[in-house]
């Protein structure tokens, strides 16, 4: 493999990896605030991309994307209000099963609204064939968009959670819900907010990746599995580690495809998931005291 090929595979790995990282961050936000794993996380990306793809025939592309992200954010909040909030004090098992049901309903709704056809947004700049040369490799400018937007999402979330009052309130709830409530934080709205935030960043990631990977109604579940693998790899709840883990998984997949048949690509992430669950269930980057995850 020469340098140009390595750069080529490396960049494509980083591209998908950054999308996995965004999905993982979506998992983390909801997991931190509720302790549940949201099985509908992958569907948020697809809904966002589908809405934007339909809207961009009517309005300019940036407007379509903003509208789609806003609508998906609202949808996320609505899902929490309708399905999660009414069952307060329920077991985690029940809540997880509910999110499974939500993911099915979303997938079926998409099937009936947008049918089985593969759709995609137009390339943000240039066309499908335009390339940018980097170190002898040819990459699509969309790849730069994906990387840029992912970086902005991560930076934005970091600022939000560190420096804004709402973000800090959400972190307080994740840390100790009862204590946060005693401090006057409305913890129930923080849960709603976490669903909205996850849905919103998911939709945005779905939009930027859509020109490269295309979008179909049933692509949510595989994305969710990979995002979950990344979230575990980085340690559940640790969003910055999720970025690193996302890039690791993306690169592994990309170089695996160069060596193995595409059919095995799917198997890579699940094998990694099982391996990490055996050897480091608290994640690659966790310190010792976080391994409270292990039951026995």
């Amino acid at each position, binding site marked *: 493999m020469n340098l140009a090929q390595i750069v080529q595979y490396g960049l494509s790995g980083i591209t998908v990896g950054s999308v996995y990282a965004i999905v993982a961050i979506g998992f983390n936000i909801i997991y931190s605030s509720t302790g549940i794993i949201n099985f509908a996380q992958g569907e948020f990306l697809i809904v966002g991309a589908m809405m934007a793809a339909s809207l961009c025939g009517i309005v300019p592309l940036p407007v379509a994307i903003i509208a789609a992200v806003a609508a998906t954010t609202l949808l996320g909040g609505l899902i929490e209000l309708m399905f999660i909030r009414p069952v307060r004090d329920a077991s985690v098992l*029940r809540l997880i099963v509910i999110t*499974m049901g939500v993911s*099915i309903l979303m*997938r*079926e709704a998409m099937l009936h609204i947008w049918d089985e056809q593969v759709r995609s947004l137009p390339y943000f700049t240039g066309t499908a064939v335009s390339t940018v040369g980097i170190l002898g490799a040819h990459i699509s400018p969309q790849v730069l968009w994906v990387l840029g937007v992912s970086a902005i999402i991560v930076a934005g979330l970091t600022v939000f959670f560190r420096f804004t009052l709402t973000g800090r309130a959400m972190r307080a709830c994740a840390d100790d819900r009862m204590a946060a409530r005693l401090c006057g934080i409305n913890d129930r709205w923080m849960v709603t907010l976490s669903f909205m935030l996850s849905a919103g960043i998911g939709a945005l990631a779905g939009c930027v990746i859509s020109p490269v990977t295309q979008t179909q109604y049933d692509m949510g579940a595989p994305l969710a*599995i990979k995002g979950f693998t990344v979230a575990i790899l980085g340690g559940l709840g640790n969003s910055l580690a999720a970025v690193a883990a996302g890039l690791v998984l993306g690169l592994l997949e990309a170089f695996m495809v160069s060596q193995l048949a595409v059919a095995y690509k*799917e198997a890579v992430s699940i094998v990694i998931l099982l391996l990490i*669950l055996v050897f480091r269930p608290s994640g690659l980057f966790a310190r010792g005291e976080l391994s409270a995850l292990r*039951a026995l």
Partner: protein
Amino acid sequence: MTRRQRYYPVLGGGLLVVAVQVVLSATEATYYMTQITMSAYYVLVVIGLCLLMGYAGQVSLGQAGFFAIGGYTAAVLTTRNLLAYRDTPLIAWCRSLGLVVERRDLYGADILSFSPWLAFGAALLLTGLIAFLIGLPVLRLKGHYLAMATLGIGLIVYRVVLGAPLFGQADGISNVPPFRLADGVEVNGRPAFRVQNYYMAWVMVLAAMVLAVNLVHSRVGRALRSIHQNEEAAHSLGVNTYRYKLGTFILSALFAAAGGVFLTHYNGSIGPSEATVMKSVRYVAIVAVGGMANLWGALIMGVVLNFLSLRGVFGTYDDAVFGAILIAMMLFAPQGLLRRPEWRAVWSLVFRRSHG
């Protein structure tokens, strides 16, 4: 509940099975029996999952994957023509042990293939092994990692059967021979065998039910329930929670595989649609409607919902119906449809006692 009382519902179920057959035969509506038989095989999957979800408190989203592993293993082993390898030592050895059978297909060509018994054993062995390998790491963890891991396995199985020429890709595998259990008794979907297969399927379901009910009321069942209620308390009382959860997971996978093997022989074919994640979610939904820790509820709902689905009652909203059921049950009736307070009066009339 005494040991004898435990079997009353089994007896009742058996009588109901006979009654339905008599009514259907008398009204010449025996074609319904085909779908009831198919539903019965799906119910095997549901019973296994009910043990796992309701009693061990773990969710598996890979039951369709295990079903498919069972069905496809049986299909591949019983349809692969070994005629070319007839004289190799391995096959000759298998022949001397009666592990291969010769038959003639529709077009008169000779076929030498592994016997369904061998395929059945191999299917159970393979499924058990895979479930063991997944459960071993995942069940050591708190929380519901099993759901994600099994979802991943389900997706891989789907991709593999859809992509590999060995599994017939999108067409699946057809011309799977009947499974002869004894002379004149075979798992066979042809109309001539309809009534016989109806009973055979139900004998299997009721046998599975007896096994499950006894398990639930044994030391194992009590351990499982203690795990479900409070895993840490159970663990501190000396219950080996990990081993019980792993055992139940493997058992549920074996139930699913057995359902897959029999339905494949019954239909004479299996396709990738059996391996979709949606099928797995469907089994989860049925267990939820039945009331999680309620084997009889799961059985009843399994038959009713699968039968309606196979009759095409839900149309293009088939999957959406199961998703909606899942949410509605979890929101409004986590104890299942049959345990709603308004039913209690009816049940106490029927059984003259309240369920423990």
